[in-house]
């Protein structure tokens, strides 16, 4: 019986730091989420509606980027070192990428929070997508660039450690968790290049005044070149945990190691050439390019559908090992009392629902009905907000003891927490989807208009608002329970004897059953790059050809513009 902290004390310290950073982001993000649901529904408006967008920016950036990426950096470091059974090559390098990621986040946070404080003349209320010509303070772009470079160094750390292991073990198959870390890292390099170019080449120099204008369609396309694969950057560690940890806590084995590899190879190939599906309604992009992105996106369903099969089969195997019988009776034999298992299982269940609303979004012409509506917000709160976030929280109840040596304070509170999240998200997300179908926009402080009302297909708007408020409050309560449980656990003493051994699920059909070509990462990377070039070279070329590298004109719009003045300027130019 060895826990992670006993085997890898130095790495455990870094993972603790990444987790704690993630949890701070989660706490602030959850609080701001509560403020938003109260604001939008006009239950209570703590800030001016113009400041709502600063709150929304912080909520989006802290939860979608900071919480997820810090946590997954910890999970990947755990999975890699555990499965290679060797530490990182040089832990100082590991601290270096962690430090760079923290530094970048802190720099970006200054203008993000500055926008909320009257005395500070800096702001970055440009939301998670920072579409030009809306302009943030240069620190926001600089911080973002440093954060991305930090993640690149983290990837380099994992590859470096893998190569060191490879020299020591020239003939072994890549262990499954390491394989998952490496494929994810490769497509992350490929896709985050887009946002890095957008930020470093265009937006940062533009915010510093070195460039007069940018091409808004180009920077937007570069953002979505990264903006869709980034969801797989959150989802792949989640899948990894479903593949290697969920079967273990269910009491069984992974159904098939080779098919898990096939799934991750498919994600490496198909994650990036899909981003244009976020731009189905953009003028300036030909329908043909949108159609290609649509077909790629639909084929991306395949690895997720395969995952659904393998994960359910593995869990069923676990249940039968525990004495479960019957067609459905085995479900009763699963460890539902365990928040690690239940949290991950509920997250997986909600991801299935998310898959269906995602298919609507992906359906190019069907997307007209839901594009940029509240439906989309409902969708991604099921994906990143539940499949990913709930899995990460559930897995904390397993990983936190491994990296601290301290048992979880209360597993019952943990169980209540994951169930509360599930119920809260059911109510909130249902109301969001339904609101979106009646045209309620996303990203707005006051979805109440003067001259018209939204009419839901059935029921009333008031009832949808109630769903959002009750659901959002339950989610906030769940986040508080989670953070409280973590905090009290940390104040407790170490008790290594009560903590299970650090291990992950073995496979019924192991790596030796899979063809060697699956492990040929160079080959898959080359194909992935080719697919990206095939999908993106023409649209990006066409955008630059149409509007020019720096755009057909236009000025930056910092967010401090007062609305009254902006209207009169707009009218002066346009109507006069």
């Amino acid at each position, binding site marked *: 019986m060895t826990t992670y902290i006993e085997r890898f004390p130095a790495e455990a310290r870094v993972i603790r730091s990444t987790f704690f950073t993630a949890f701070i982001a989660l706490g602030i993000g959850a609080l701001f989420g509560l403020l938003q649901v109260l604001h939008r529904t006009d239950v209570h408006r703590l800030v001016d509606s113009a400041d709502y967008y600063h709150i929304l920016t912080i909520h989006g950036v802290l939860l979608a980027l900071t919480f997820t990426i810090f946590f997954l950096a910890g999970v990947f470091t755990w999975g890699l070192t555990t499965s290679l059974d060797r530490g990182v090559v040089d832990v100082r390098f590991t601290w270096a990428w962690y430090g760079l990621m923290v530094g970048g986040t802190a720099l970006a946070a200054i203008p993000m929070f500055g926008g909320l404080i009257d005395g500070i003349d800096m702001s970055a209320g440009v939301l998670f997508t920072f579409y030009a010509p809306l302009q943030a303070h240069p620190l926001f772009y600089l911080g973002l660039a440093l954060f991305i470079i930090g993640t690149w160094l983290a990837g380099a750390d994992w590859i470096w450690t893998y190569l060191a292991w490879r020299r020591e073990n020239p003939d072994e198959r890549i262990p499954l968790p390491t394989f998952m870390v490496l494929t994810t890292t490769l497509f992350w390099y490929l896709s985050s290049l887009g946002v890095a170019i957008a930020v470093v080449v265009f937006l940062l120099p533009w915010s510093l005044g070195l460039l007069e204008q940018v091409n808004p369609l180009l920077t937007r396309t570069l953002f979505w070149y990264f903006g869709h694969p980034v969801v797989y950057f959150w989802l792949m560690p989640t899948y990894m945990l479903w593949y290697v940890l969920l079967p273990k806590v269910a009491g069984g084995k992974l159904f098939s190691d080779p098919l898990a590899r096939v799934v991750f190879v498919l994600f490496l190939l198909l994650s990036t050439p899909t981003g244009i599906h976020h731009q189905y309604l953009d003028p300036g992009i030909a329908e043909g390019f949108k159609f290609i992105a649509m077909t790629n996106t639909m084929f991306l369903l395949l690895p997720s559908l395969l995952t659904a099969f393998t994960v359910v089969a593995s869990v069923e195997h676990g249940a039968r090992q525990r004495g479960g019988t019957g067609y459905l009776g085995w479900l009763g034999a699963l460890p539902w009392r365990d928040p690690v298992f*239940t949290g991950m299982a509920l997250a997986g*269940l909600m991801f299935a629902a998310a898959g269906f609303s995602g298919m609507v979004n992906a359906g190019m012409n069907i997307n007209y009905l839901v594009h940029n509506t509240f439906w989309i917000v409902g969708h991604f709160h099921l994906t990143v907000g539940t499949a990913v976030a709930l899995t990460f929280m559930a897995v904390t109840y397993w990983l936190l003891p491994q990296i601290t040596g301290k048992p979880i304070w209360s597993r019952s509170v943990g169980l209540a927490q994951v169930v509360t999240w*599930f119920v809260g998200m059911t109510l909130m997300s249902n109301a969001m989807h339904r609101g979106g179908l009646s045209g309620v926009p996303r990203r707005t402080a006051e979805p109440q208009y003067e001259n018209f009302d939204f009419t839901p297909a059935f*029921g009333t708007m008031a009832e949808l608002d109630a769903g959002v408020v009750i659901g959002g409050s339950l989610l906030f309560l769940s986040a508080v329970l989670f953070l409280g449980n973590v905090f009290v656990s940390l104040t407790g003493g170490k008790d290594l004897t009560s903590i299970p051994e650090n291990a992950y699920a073995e496979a019924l059909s192991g790596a030796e059953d899979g063809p060697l070509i699956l492990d040929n990462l160079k080959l898959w990377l080359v194909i992935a790059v080719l697919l990206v070039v095939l999908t993106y070279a023409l649209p990006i070329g066409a955008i630059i050809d149409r509007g020019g590298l720096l755009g057909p004109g236009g000025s930056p719009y910092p967010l401090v513009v007062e609305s009254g003045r902006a209207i009169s300027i707009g009218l002066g130019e346009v109507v006069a």
Partner: protein
Amino acid sequence: MRISPGALLVLIAVSIPFIVQSRTVAAFIGLDMSVWQMIALGTVTISAIILWAVWPEKWLPGRPKLEEG
């Protein structure tokens, strides 16, 4: 109990999305269900689940019967 308390809790939680979506299904086939009707349906459903869960399992062959035990 037929199922463990943990399983019962999760079963109730998982029934909630089905109860919420029952309204969507009802609207789709032209039945107007109010929020209160949905809450009533939910209460009945969840009560039935709890009742089913705590009802003693029927005696399996080989197990001692109540009057024998």
